[in-house]
């Protein structure tokens, strides 16, 4: 078991956990009265929630050695459709909200299935497929909305989306619950094991009798459905669609997943790492704003963290092999 502990300590995720703790410590020391406060912590958690939900799906996709560039557009598409559906049903009724929930998840899941079928059955590289659906979903969202954000989100939903439960933002609690369930599914179930196997060696998985195509479609469908659900959370939080606000969501999500130690080559990764990877950029951005640093620096910092994370991981593996 000592070997297990040692391997855990040298994991890139552990390094990134220390980086996160370090960042928090530095900002807390510099701005104890503004950064290290309950209100600011709540703000950070709210900012993390949607990114985290989408990153959970991306973790599965990237572990299969795939990539999903379409998540931001799928989120926008789903939220537009969901907002339209809720408006059509009308009022602040629970049925309206629940149908909005259903519509966003189904719409996102449908894009995911399309991605999955094209990747798994038609054998088009995931980068190309999801680059295509990135454009298509965004375009259709603009067509449906006329390019104008839909602002008629039921008031109770917005109250719910900005509410807190035991001091914790509700949307973060939901995101955390999803992350835990997905993390367990990835680490402890047959579904998770086969996700790793496909990313590790697709041909070997196929020869072992795993239905690779069907599994890949499920994984992309999951990522799409989670992006769709992210759209629902986004409506709940902002009370409007955010058509122009998610153009770089895909890159933010991929950055978070990779910082968390998931390999873009597939077969390696875990949900705890993704969680840390989501927090690091959000905490950095928040801290920079509080310190009055020109906020654009956050991109420079996140870029540096990303490259450092991958570099550390590569060096660790080289050491292991030698």
């Amino acid at each position, binding site marked *: 078991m000592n*070997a*297990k502990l040692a*391997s855990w300590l040298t994991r890139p995720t552990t390094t990134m956990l220390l980086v996160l703790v370090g960042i928090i410590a530095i900002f807390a020391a510099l701005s104890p009265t503004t950064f290290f406060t309950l209100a600011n912590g709540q703000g950070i958690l709210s900012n993390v929630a949607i990114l985290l939900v989408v990153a959970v799906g991306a973790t599965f996709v990237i572990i299969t050695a795939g990539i999903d560039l379409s998540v931001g557009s799928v989120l926008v598409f789903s939220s537009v459709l969901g907002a339209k559906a809720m408006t059509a049903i009308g009022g602040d009724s629970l049925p309206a909200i629940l149908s909005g929930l259903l519509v966003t998840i189904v719409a996102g899941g449908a894009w995911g299935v399309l991605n999955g079928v094209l990747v798994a059955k038609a054998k088009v590289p995931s980068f190309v497929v999801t680059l295509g659906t990135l454009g298509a979903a965004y375009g259709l969202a603009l067509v449906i909305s006329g390019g104008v954000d839909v602002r008629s989100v039921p008031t109770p939903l917005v109250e719910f989306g900005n509410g807190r439960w035991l001091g914790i933002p509700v949307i973060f609690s939901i995101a955390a619950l999803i992350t835990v369930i997905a993390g367990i*599914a990835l680490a*402890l*179930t*047959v*579904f998770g*094991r*086969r996700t*790793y*196997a496909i*990313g*590790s*060696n697709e*041909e*070997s*998985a196929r*020869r*072992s*009798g*795993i239905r690779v195509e069907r599994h890949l479609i499920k994984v992309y469908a999951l990522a799409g459905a989670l992006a769709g659900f992210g759209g629902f959370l986004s409506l709940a939080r902002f009370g409007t669609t955010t058509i122009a606000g998610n153009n770089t969501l895909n890159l933010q999500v991929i950055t978070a997943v990779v910082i968390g130690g998931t*390999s873009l080559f*597939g*077969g*390696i990764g875990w949900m705890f790492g993704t969680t840390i990877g989501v927090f690091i950029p959000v905490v950095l951005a928040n801290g920079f704003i509080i310190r009055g640093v020109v906020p654009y620096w956050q991109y420079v910092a996140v870029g540096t963290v990303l490259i450092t994370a991958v570099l550390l991981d590569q060096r660790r593996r080289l050491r*292991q*092999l030698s």
Partner: protein
Amino acid sequence: MGNTNAISVTESDLILTVRDVRKSFGRVEALRGADFDVRRGEVVALMGDNGAGKSTLVKILAGVQAADSGVVTLDGNEVVFASPDEARAAGIETVYQDLALADTLDSAANLFLGRELRRQGFLGHIGFLDNRRMRREAREAFASLQVTVRSEHDAVGNLSGGQRQGIAVCRAATWAQHVLFLDEPTAALGLRQTRNVLDLICRVRDQGISVVLISHSLPDVMQVADRIEVLRLGRRIAQFTTVDVSADDVVAAITGARGSGQDDEGQDL
């Protein structure tokens, strides 16, 4: 059946028979009425030069490709495998040349790949893995074939080529009911590792599984194979019992440099 080392064999001694199998790819005839026999509990080497049809024959028997015509029997029953799954379900396992392991998973996960054990009860029903049992059974499987796995928590990608081949062979042997095909299992290995894999092949046979060794390495074959069957240009042209034959004779049969007396139909070559 006239051949150089005719041995009286009754049908019941044969676990796998291939009769007059043909397979063409466009205008290329890979198999032109090939025969092949595997007896119970033996190591038989399938040899032949490049293009002799070995790979095609193995792919047909592993369910990867379908034959155009011909008859295959397994344990006395005629079989046709429409997919690798069907071949495996019938008790035929194949270890391919390019080590079909999932490098980032550990040895137990690889052993149970595609056949993961689930926990008892509700948790198993919703897909939870029984990692403890898989680890334990993997340990037993490796021990019974004396395969050393340096660290069972380590991804197999971090292990040596010999250990990886050991795991791949052990996995296939664990699931093979009847026949285990090994495609060039020592091609990428050093001397000592080769030795280990050859010993492993004998242990698999001693467990009662027939092993078909596809190999170009005559020393390996002479060392472990009980019999040798040679394909040339899509047909079986010779069957040897290893103890009765010299390496030169086998080479001659493979290259066709010298007729080995008679071919399968008893006609002079």
